[in-house]
Structures are given as structure tokens and as C-alpha cells.
């Protein structure tokens, strides 16, 4: 008891503060890692009536992004059209029978031209992927 209590009966806070700070640092780091995967400069179009995105998604889900200039990204990595085709068909092959059912989410900027979105759609369908959905903003926070 003597080790933890001060003579006047108060608890030594130092150890607790150490632990709490460790936890704060842990959470700060993990939150940033989670946000890493999407590009926040993409302005999504509005769709107030669209169905809300499910909280738990298929872990295989691939999110492809198209920005206003028509550049294609996966997890903030810029890809050319050929590279995207290669990546998608390689992924589908690696998953074997479950490959074509990998869900694809397309986050395209509201100002992107359809030609650029079409390139992504064509790459998906030539890889055999058929579960394609567009992401839009339902409610602005």
C-alpha cells in the first residue's frame, strides 16, 4: 500500500497520466492510418435519396477514385488505365472463383467527365467484375 499512496492519502497520478498519454498517442496514430486510404479533395456528388452505405463492408471491397481532372487512384496511388486493368484482372485471378464478385466502389468527383468514369467502368467489366456502385454524399455533415 505504501508504494501507491502518498503520506496524506492521495494517489500518485504519475503512472496513470503515463498510461493515458500512451493511449491518446495510440488513438491519434490509428485514426490517421484509417483515413489514409481516401483522397479528401474529391468532391462527391449529392444523392439525398440513395441507399445508405452499410457500416460493415465486404473486406474485399476495392475503392477506385476518379478526381475532377480524370486521374484514377486506388488508395491515393495514381494509376494509369493499363495499370488499373492489370491490377484488377490480377486481383480477380488471385481470388479465383470469388474474384468476379468483388464489390467495386467508385468515388468519382462531381465534376469528372463521364469519359474518365467510363474508363474505370470498362476496366472493371473487362476484368469480369460486376458488383459496381457509385459513391455519393447522402447528408453533408
Amino acid at each position, binding site marked *: 500500500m*505504501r508504494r501507491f499512496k*502518498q*503520506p*496524506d492519502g492521495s494517489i*500518485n*497520478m*504519475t503512472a496513470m*497520466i503515463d498510461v493515458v498519454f500512451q493511449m*491518446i498517442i495510440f488513438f491519434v496514430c490509428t485514426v490517421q492510418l484509417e483515413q489514409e486510404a481516401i483522397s479528401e479533395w474529391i468532391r*462527391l*456528388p*449529392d*444523392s*439525398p*435519396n*440513395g*441507399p*445508405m*452505405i452499410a457500416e460493415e463492408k465486404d473486406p474485399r471491397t476495392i475503392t477506385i477514385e*476518379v478526381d475532377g481532372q480524370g486521374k484514377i487512384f486506388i488508395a491515393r496511388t495514381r494509376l494509369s488505365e493499363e495499370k488499373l486493368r492489370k491490377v484488377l484482372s490480377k486481383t480477380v485471378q488471385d481470388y479465383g472463383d470469388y474474384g468476379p464478385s468483388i464489390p467495386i*466502389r467508385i468515388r*468519382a*468527383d*462531381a*465534376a*469528372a*467527365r*463521364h*469519359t474518365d*468514369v*467510363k474508363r474505370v*467502368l*470498362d476496366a*472493371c*467489366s*473487362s476484368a469480369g467484375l*460486376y*458488383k*459496381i*456502385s*457509385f*459513391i*455519393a*454524399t*447522402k*447528408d*453533408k*455533415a
Partner: protein
Amino acid sequence: MRKKRREREEPAIEVSMTPMIDVVFQLLIYFLVTFSTPDVLAHLDISRPAPDKSQTEQRTPPKMIRVNIYENGFSLNGRSVQIEELASILGRLAEFSKNQTVLITCAGGSEHARLISVLDLCAQTGLSKISVMSAN
């Protein structure tokens, strides 16, 4: 006497709170500034006809609702319409049957937001069989 002995054995550790409060306030301010509630997102599912199939797709059965999206307008089954008109007609067609296929053909130069607005109308009216094709 007793008090004196204790003081000698374990002198009370005075934790200086000032630097800790400084750091905690800095953290608090950081979190307040960076805090933003994430937007609620919607997903609009479509199907994409296979590239080789698109050639045979020309002979579309009349049951299909054909929506064309151009750079500066929409057309429904060949008739050019405004977005409000498109919404009301799609609503009436959806009352008929929600199993109808909506074939959306999008012009290459049109903005993605226009395609999303049509998909949103389909979601609103409950039409869920949507395929998106691209025209050049």
C-alpha cells in the same frame, strides 16, 4: 513525532501540473480544430453490360426505360426532357412496375454529377435494375 518520521521516509512528491495542463490543452485544441463529422455516404448500384454484349443491346425490348444523358440535357425514350419532368415520369413508370430495367446511356462529355442525379432519381422512385452504358 509520527508525522515527522513519515516525511523523512517518503517525502510527498509534488507533481507540477502546469506543463501537463499545457500539453493537454494543446491536444484539446488540436482535436477541436481537426474535428469534422464524416459525411453520410450513399451507394448507387449499377450493372454494366459487357463490352461485347453492347452490340446486341441495340435491339432493346420496349419494356425498357431508356434514359439518355447529354452534356446539357436528358432524354427519356427518345424525347428530350428536363430533370423535373424526368423525375415525375420515372415516378409514374415506377408505380407501374419496379422490375423494369432502366438503361442509362451517358454521353462522354457530360459531368459525373448528372449521371448521379439520374441514379438518385431511380433510387428515389425505387427502380433498382439499372444498367449504365457509355456513348461517345
